[in-house]
């Protein structure tokens, strides 16, 4: 969807404010927000793609005026309600009305193992990759109402395939519970002038990682 999270190329946010290493949190609630999101996520009721979509589909005014962990909290509340784990009025009244349903609970003893294992997103599909390294491709000009990882600034643009990563879980489907529908994933390199016009830095290129359905061979009519 064309949400507020898709920030590439927007202007007016002011300078970037560097900060020293070693302080990932700025308040105790941020620690808890991160940990709650990971711990509840480990129950496996929704995917990382659904989590991202819950954040990115927040109303633009809310998204842009919330700090990052506040966005995570809002998305977590939304997911808990949408999946029936917590009732909306329990969130609103800030108290539980009773025990929940059985879920897979992440235990403290398992945390190191779970975090160190991660979860790979590559899938063996047996399908050959449609594009090869060095091939010219064009991203589709598409504006889906659901989740996508094709940023607006890179839609309908011609680039060159730089890497072929194998088939990866497709966020556009997985975010909505439509299954993993893995597709080949490519790193595509764009000249900045293709993205931003003639005044762009001639010494700048930008890469994105794009699933096969985001791409068509260059030369194909752009729809």
């Amino acid at each position, binding site marked *: 969807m064309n949400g507020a999270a898709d920030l590439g190329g927007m202007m007016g946010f002011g*300078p970037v404010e560097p900060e020293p290493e070693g302080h990932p949190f700025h308040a105790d609630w941020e620690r808890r927000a991160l940990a*709650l999101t990971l711990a509840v996520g480990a129950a496996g009721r929704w995917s990382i793609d659904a989590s991202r979509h819950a954040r990115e589909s927040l109303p633009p005014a809310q998204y842009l*005026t919330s*700090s*990052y962990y506040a966005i995570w909290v809002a998305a977590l509340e939304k997911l808990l309600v949408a999946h029936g784990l*917590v009732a909306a009025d329990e969130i609103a009244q800030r108290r539980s009305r009773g025990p929940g349903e059985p879920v897979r*609970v992440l235990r403290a003893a398992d945390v190191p193992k779970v975090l160190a294992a991660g979860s790979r997103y590559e899938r063996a599909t047996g399908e050959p990759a449609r594009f090869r390294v060095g091939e010219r491709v064009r991203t589709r000009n598409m504006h889906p109402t659901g989740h996508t990882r094709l940023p607006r*600034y890179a839609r309908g643009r011609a680039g060159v395939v730089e890497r072929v990563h194998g088939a990866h879980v497709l966020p556009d489907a997985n975010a909505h519970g439509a299954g993993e529908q893995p597709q080949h994933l490519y790193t595509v390199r764009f000249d900045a002038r293709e993205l931003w016009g003639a005044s762009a830095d001639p010494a700048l*290129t930008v890469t*994105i990682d794009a699933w096969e359905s985001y791409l068509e061979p260059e030369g194909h009519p752009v729809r």
Partner: protein
Amino acid sequence: MGDGDIAVRVEALESILVEKGYIDPDALDAIVDTYENDVGPRNGAAVVARAWVDPDYRQRLRDDATAAIGELGFGGRQGEHMVAVENTPDEHHLVVCTLCSCYPWPVLGLPPTWYKSPAYRSRAVLDPRGVLADFGVTLPADVRITVHDSTAEVRYLVVPMRPAGTEGWEERELAAIVTRDSMIGTGLPVASGPS
């Protein structure tokens, strides 16, 4: 920021989830402890320092960064599919996630606030030299910049150039000058001491 009474809200949410039996409070502490004390940018610095001193390791990092990083004991969540990109005298790499906050946790830990900010995410792909100026970094105009927008589950680690004046340094000393920002691409390691 319009976060309002967020601290109270998060505390209430945690209570609800504990009462419902969905979370183990000790697991929350373990998660925080992992990313506050264990997994952070010193991991990535060890990878870079190894690549600087060991050409064979550097080649393995090029060929399969996930495996090469795994050799040093680092891997897992948000680092399942790693790619290492090497700065050269002609090309400088910068990593961003314009859509959210994708970041290679096993080697860099949790992202700094600026990495997740609209200011960085909006401008890194359009005006990276302006972003670098905010960090006090100026590159020659003829150095090409490649910005990697992390739009999938691939995570990028920048291998900065080893600074002049570090000949003969121990791997451990080299790792100490590899900053977090230099592995994102918003900084450069300097031989004069840790920054």
